């Protein structure tokens, strides 16, 4: 897969704690097309560390002259958001993988209802642009701390008017999820992205109202959780890889030069599933992909999110 060579064309820090970054092709021309809901895995060279983090594309998918992402400064950053906030400047060069989409709208839908919380608004910037262009009915419910700190709030209201509802918690407003899902026409799809609790509540409200799972879509991008260091033995390469406290297994594999499969880097897509040959200890599954039964079987690990504690872990890599 060809890496994209990008240059930082603009940085917008208008909203405190959220940095909008526009990336354009280094050599001019157009970037590959992407679809609403897609994300980009940015490669960031930060001293000796090469970070690869996924970010939802929030620009209009029709605009192929550049890609835009919006990054919230994480309170306990593993490094990615701190790098983008503190060290990135206009003119810097970055590379990225091709856009990939794990949060595709269901185009059979008659109506599209989106529930966003905080920086989880980013994929809905591209979705609302596309729904609007195609004339598809939609509504967006956007929970935020305050109007002043809500990324894209003004832009969304200007663009889509009453189809966008803001719920600033400092004004005491909360999304009435039961009401949102309570009277929608057959063929409606629900999409949610934001804090875990909000996503879980939105999905539960829909299930409680009799919605089928096929109409429910959630985007979970989480940073890999830190944990105690551990060592993985790679059966095919014949090497041992030590995973640091703030490093994911996938990152440790990449640092060791192992070509490990991956796509979303957030435990959602299943691409990085790796066969476990031996595990004397416990696999700490942190992904959203394996079923409870598959977790219990213990013969696969999702390297982007999951960790291990114990004496010996042997992987088929």
């Amino acid at each position: 897969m060809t890496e994209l060579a990008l240059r930082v064309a603009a940085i917008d820090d208008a909203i405190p704690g959220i940095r909008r970054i526009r990336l354009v092709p280094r050599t001019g021309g157009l970037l590959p097309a992407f679809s609403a809901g897609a994300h980009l895995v940015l490669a960031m060279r930060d001293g000796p560390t090469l970070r690869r983090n996924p970010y939802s594309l929030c620009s209009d998918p029709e605009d192929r002259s550049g890609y835009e992402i919006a990054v919230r400064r994480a309170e306990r950053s593993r490094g990615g958001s701190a790098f983008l906030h503190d060290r990135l400047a206009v003119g810097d060069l970055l590379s990225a993988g091709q856009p990939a989409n794990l949060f595709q709208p269901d185009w059979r839908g008659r109506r599209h209802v989106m529930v966003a919380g905080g920086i989880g608004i980013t994929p809905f910037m591209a979705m609302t642009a596309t729904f609007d262009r195609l004339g598809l009915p939609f509504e967006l419910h956007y929970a935020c701390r305050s109007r002043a700190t809500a990324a894209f709030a003004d832009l969304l209201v200007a663009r889509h008017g009453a189809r966008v509802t803001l719920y600033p918690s400092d004004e005491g407003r909360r999304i009435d999820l039961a009401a949102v899902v309570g009277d929608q026409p057959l063929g409606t799809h629900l999409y949610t992205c934001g804090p875990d609790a909000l996503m879980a509540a939105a999905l539960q409200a829909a299930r409680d109202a009799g919605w089928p799972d096929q109409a429910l879509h959630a985007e979970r991008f989480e940073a890999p959780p830190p944990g105690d260091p551990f060592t993985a033995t790679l059966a095919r390469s014949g090497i041992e890889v030590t995973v640091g406290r703030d490093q994911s297994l996938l990152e440790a594999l990449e640092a060791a030069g192992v070509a490990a499969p991956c796509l979303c880097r957030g435990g959602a897509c299943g691409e990085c599933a790796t066969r476990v040959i031996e595990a004397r200890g416990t696999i700490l599954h942190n992904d959203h992909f394996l079923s409870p039964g598959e977790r219990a079987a213990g013969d696969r690990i999702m390297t982007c999110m999951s960790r291990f504690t114990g004496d010996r872990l042997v992987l088929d890599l």
Partner: protein
Amino acid sequence: MAAAFLSRPVYPGLALVPQARRHIFALEGAGAGALTDLAPDAGALTRSDILYLPRDPDGAAQAVALAALGAASLWQAPDLAALLSRLAGLLDGARMGTRLYAAGSEGFIGQVLVVAEAAGIDPLSVATEHRGNRARRVQCVHCKTVAEEVTTQPCACPGCGLTLFVRDHYSRRLGAFQGVCIDAEEPGSAPAAEEAFR
């Protein structure tokens, strides 16, 4: 047998979605038994509409059994086209939380799913249960005629007369299996038809 063809539908059986705001049951012939066996509670039945297409020989008795359930409504269709049209009318204007259930022959379920998908329902969201014979609805890939109630392998196309091999390849759009000329290379070499879908 399992999953030889990815398009070959599976029918997991009816299971009530207790949270549903409204239940619509589309039933044909022996499919009535799928609902009476399910025995929904009275609360669910007050939110249930039943569309029933009776088939011989037990249609009348099954209609009596369905009526005894005491659902919000029970409508007997004179024919399949009428049932599908009534179903489309019910789904038009329905709200999310309406759940659809289909039970009966494979051809019936397939055509209910076509109506459901046109109304914005993912076919996987529909509870289905196969009851009754295994007769197939078959589209001749050559002249596009759809043969109903096909029970033999191969079968004769009622449109163009070709002898068709009935494949497991299933069209969700048509709700029909694909039939392909079995003796195109050497006309007249088709094996004798045998009862295969009973």
